[in-house]
Structure formats: structure tokens, C-alpha cells
């Protein structure tokens, strides 16, 4: 990153230019992160007036209390289905759009636009569609099959709705990136595979998927971040973690402990676990970074 002849060698002025960024990061990012770490070893009572050191007590509760075990379970289920569903559908649609002759621009636009919506809007709309009294989904099911399940009262169904809303909102993102990757695949490799007489399935498994692997890794990181953090409004609006904590995701549990149950120490411990996860994902992103997303030998 070095430029041989910097425009100015006045180091104080350079530091001055950096100062606003550094100051804000220290005040509102690194500071709070260290404070979170500290709080996670304390029990906080009386709205922060009394703090008591409790070592790893908060972490022990996290791992051994059955309530939190359900929370981890719900988080894992939700994350798994949201990430694989979103990426799988994104890839499938991208392959289809990439393969058709006409109307690619049309399909691209009309398949990715929900990406522009906020998670809160997705949450509100799904809450309405799956509502028991007025929801259109149940009206349709009733007319077709004579059934009208109470979606938000059953643990498994509530999870399905939340996962559905989360996937629906994010499908466009995966589609955009997979389409971009598909259209920059190296031609010579594809041509060679075709010449060798590889069939559709063979080419998909042996040529397309391996060539798309770097993009898949990138999308995996982004989708994990989305499924763990950005979906808060979806859960908050549709289920509030219910019924009986079936959709209590970690980010929602953190919020509830921190701001409703006033269990600051416990909320901080959950933050620290998430922090570790993000640090790991950041590392993965940087490790794959130098390699970038290249396809084939030529650039």
C-alpha cells in the first residue's frame, strides 16, 4: 500500500486526518467491546448501581441453563435453514436466469427487488399474511384443503414463518452475486467441459460448483452475519421469540436480557460469544481475501 512519494510528509497533519475516525472507533466501538467483555464477568443489579464480580458465572449459566440451551438450539436451526435455503435458492435461480435465452434483465430485476426492503417491512408483511384471523395464507389453505393452522402458535410453524420471511428478504442478494460470478466464469474451462462431452449434471457438479466455490464462501460469511444479526426485526415483529421461546434467537435473547429482564451480565456474555463468532468470520474473510474471487488461471 506504500506510495513511494507521499504528497505530504507532515505526519501530524496525517494523524489529524485520521483522528475523527480513530476517535469514533475508540469511543463507540472498541470501548464498548472492552466494556462488554468486563460486564460479562460481573453480575449487575439495581440498574447498574451495584456490580459484583462473578467470574465465569454468566457463561456457566449460558451453557447449562435449559432455557439458554433452547435458545442455542433455535439459533442453530434458524441459521442453518436461513443460510442454506437462501443460498440454495439463490444459486438455483441464478443458474436458471443464466441459462435462459431471453428476458434475463427482466428476471434479474423482478427476482432481486425484495432485497431493497428492510427486515422490518418483511416482518410486518409476513405477520399479516400468516395471521390467524385475516391472514391470506390461511384463507388460501382453508379454501384448498379446509385447514387453517395457527401458524404463530405452534413452535415448528412459527419457526417456518420466521425462516421464510428471512429467506424471502435475502434471496435477491445471493442471486445478484451468483449471477455476477456465473457471467465471469472462464470460457475456456466451460468449453473444454462441453467438448469432452460432460452432461448437464456432470458440468454442474464438476465444473460450475467448484468454480463458484470462492463466491460461495464469500456469500456464506455474509449470509451467516445476516442470519445472526440482521434478522432481529423479523423475529421482533412476527413472534417476539415465542411461542414458548421456540424462535428465541441469540440476538433477540441478548436484547431481552439486556433491556427487558435487566440481566446485563448475561446479555454481555452472549455478546462476547457473538463477538468471537464475528472475529472468526472476519478472519475467514481476510484469509480468503488475497486470493479474491478469481476464476481459472487467467484474470
Amino acid at each position, binding site marked *: 500500500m506504500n506510495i513511494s*512519494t507521499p504528497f505530504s510528509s507532515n505526519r501530524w497533519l496525517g*494523524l489529524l486526518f*485520521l483522528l475523527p475516525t480513530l476517535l469514533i472507533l475508540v469511543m*463507540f466501538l472498541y470501548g464498548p467491546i472492552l466494556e462488554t467483555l468486563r460486564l460479562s464477568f460481573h453480575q449487575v443489579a439495581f440498574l447498574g448501581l451495584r456490580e459484583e464480580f462473578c467470574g465465569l458465572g454468566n457463561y456457566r449459566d449460558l451453557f447449562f441453563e435449559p432455557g439458554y440451551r433452547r435458545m442455542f438450539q433455535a439459533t442453530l436451526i434458524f441459521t442453518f435453514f436461513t443460510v442454506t435455503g437462501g443460498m440454495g435458492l439463490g444459486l438455483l435461480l441464478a443458474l436458471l436466469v443464466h441459462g435462459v435465452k431471453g428476458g434475463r434483465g427482466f428476471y434479474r430485476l*423482478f427476482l432481486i427487488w425484495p432485497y431493497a426492503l428492510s427486515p422490518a417491512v418483511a416482518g410486518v*408483511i409476513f405477520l399479516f399474511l400468516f395471521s390467524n384471523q*385475516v391472514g391470506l395464507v390461511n384463507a388460501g389453505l382453508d379454501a384448498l384443503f379446509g385447514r387453517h393452522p395457527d401458524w404463530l402458535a405452534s413452535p415448528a410453524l412459527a419457526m417456518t414463518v420466521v425462516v421464510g420471511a428471512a429467506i424471502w428478504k435475502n434471496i435477491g442478494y445471493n442471486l445478484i452475486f451468483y449471477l455476477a460470478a456465473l457471467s465471469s466464469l472462464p470460457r475456456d474451462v466451460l468449453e473444454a467441459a*462441453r467438448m469432452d462431452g460432460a452432461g448437464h449434471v456432470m458440468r454442474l457438479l464438476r465444473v460450475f460448483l467448484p468454480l463458484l466455490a470462492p463466491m460461495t464462501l464469500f456469500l456464506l460469511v455474509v449470509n451467516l452475519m445476516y442470519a445472526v444479526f440482521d434478522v432481529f426485526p423479523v423475529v421482533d415483529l412476527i413472534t417476539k421469540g415465542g411461542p414458548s421461546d421456540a424462535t428465541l434467537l441469540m440476538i433477540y435473547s*441478548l436484547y431481552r436480557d439486556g433491556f427487558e429482564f435487566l440481566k446485563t451480565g448475561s446479555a454481555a456474555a452472549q455478546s462476547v460469544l457473538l463477538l468471537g463468532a464475528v472475529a472468526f468470520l472476519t478472519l475467514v474473510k481476510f484469509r480468503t481475501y488475497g486470493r*479474491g474471487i478469481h476464476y481459472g488461471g487467467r484474470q
Partner: protein
Amino acid sequence: MRKVFSLFRQKEGWGKGMFSHLTLLFAVAVVGAPVLLALVFSTQTPAQIFSFPPKLAFGTATSENYSLAWETYRLGLYMKNSLFIAITVTLGKTLTAFLAATAFVYFRLPFRGFFFAFVLMTLMMPTEIMIVALFDRVTALGWADSAFALTVPFMASATSVFLFRQHFLQIPLELVDAARVDGVGLSAFMLRILLPMSRNVIAAMALIDFVYVWNQYLWPLVIIRDGSRQMVQVGLRMMTSGQDATHWGVVMAGAVLTLLPPLCVFLLLQRSLALSVSLGREK
């Protein structure tokens, strides 16, 4: 390009192509349905919404629902608040990142590698992760319920610094040398050369920043208690948690109003989404 696409679909019959089109059209319908339904129901009266079977046609309460959402539920006010916050954050973020990237690229800086890593490490840290401690800090500063709480903590961005830096590194050195030989001062160099040359990057970043701030939910939910200062997504949340039976037509009108600004930004960006893809790719 054409040729590349045809590679995957060679030897396909007419039927296979038809199948792809039908699948894709079905997907287009499924993907679009939730928003279209929200649009339809946002025009209906409660009686029309509760009717069975439901009416899939525009109702008779359009202006009533939208004005209720805008005035009574104060979504207009919240949208104005969000717009103000979004513009402030975008301007602040662009300024701090522009200065920082200039320092990284054009200055002889002590501990440059350390500082750069320090900034870059925060690339993926979401606010939500330390929200309890951030809440304490901002409250201690006396900023709760104020615009400061919604703007200042977000005015530094690793992504923006990084993108500016990448852009600066692409500017030919000859140009920089020529400017220096001609005796152009630092401020003139930044304002007359760097800034105009970064127009496209700034525009793309501004649109992304705008949508990011517009979509903020958890942070305003916990830090803003004063109803009149709330932001739009939380305003939408307040519409669903009223005491009376939820008036779904009005709520859907609120959802449609809330999604319009980012949708416009998206349509603006749509063509240049390839640009943001390459921004995300970080060559």
C-alpha cells in the same frame, strides 16, 4: 457474452427452455406476491380485509388508510426524522473516511500498518453486538433521546475508508506528481482533484449508507424513548403493537410508505449494482 450463456444450455430442446421460463415466472410471482398483497390490502377497509373469501382487488379506503398512517401514526414525522439522520450520517461518514483515506495514501504516517489494521478490524462489527455497553456509554454522555445518539457513533466506517483508499490507489501516480510539481497545495489537491475524481465512489457509498441508516431498528428502539424523535422502522413497529385490534389496512399502508424510499434507491442503483458487486469483491 452471448456465447458464454449458450454454453450451459447447448443441445437444449424447446421444451427445456420453456420449463426454465415457467419456473422463473413462478418464482417472480412468489417473490413479488407479499409486497403486491400488502399494496392491495393497504387500500381496504377493515370490513373488506375481514371478509371471507378475501378480496384481491383494490378497496375503497386508500386515502383514509394512508393519511391515518402518515398523520395519526406519525409515519410522516418518522420518515422525516430518518431522512435527516440518514443525510447527516452519510455526510459525516463520507467526510471522516475521505480524510482518513487521504492520510493513509498520501501521507507519510507513523504506524500506518497498525492504524490501518485497527480500522479494518471493525469491518464486520455490527452495532448490535455490544448494544448494552453502547447504550450505557451513550446514556452516560447524556445523548439518549437525541440525534447525537443516532448519528455520531456511526460516522466512522471501515468500509468507506477502505473503498476510498482502493480508489485513491488507482489514481495514476503521474497525476499526483504533476500536481505537486505544478505547486498545487494539499487542500487544492484534495478539493480540486481527489474529490471530483471520487464522485462515483461517493455516490455509490451514499446510497448504500442511506439504506443502512433508513433500515436501522434495534439501536433507535432502545436509545430513543421520546415518541416524536423516533425513526421510521420503529414507527412501523409501533403501528403493530397498538392497544386496539390491529388495523391491518393502515399497517400495510405504513409498510408500503416505509419501503418506498429504499426501493427508489434500489431502482436508481439497479443498473450499477454490478458496481457494488465489484465494490464488495475488493480487488
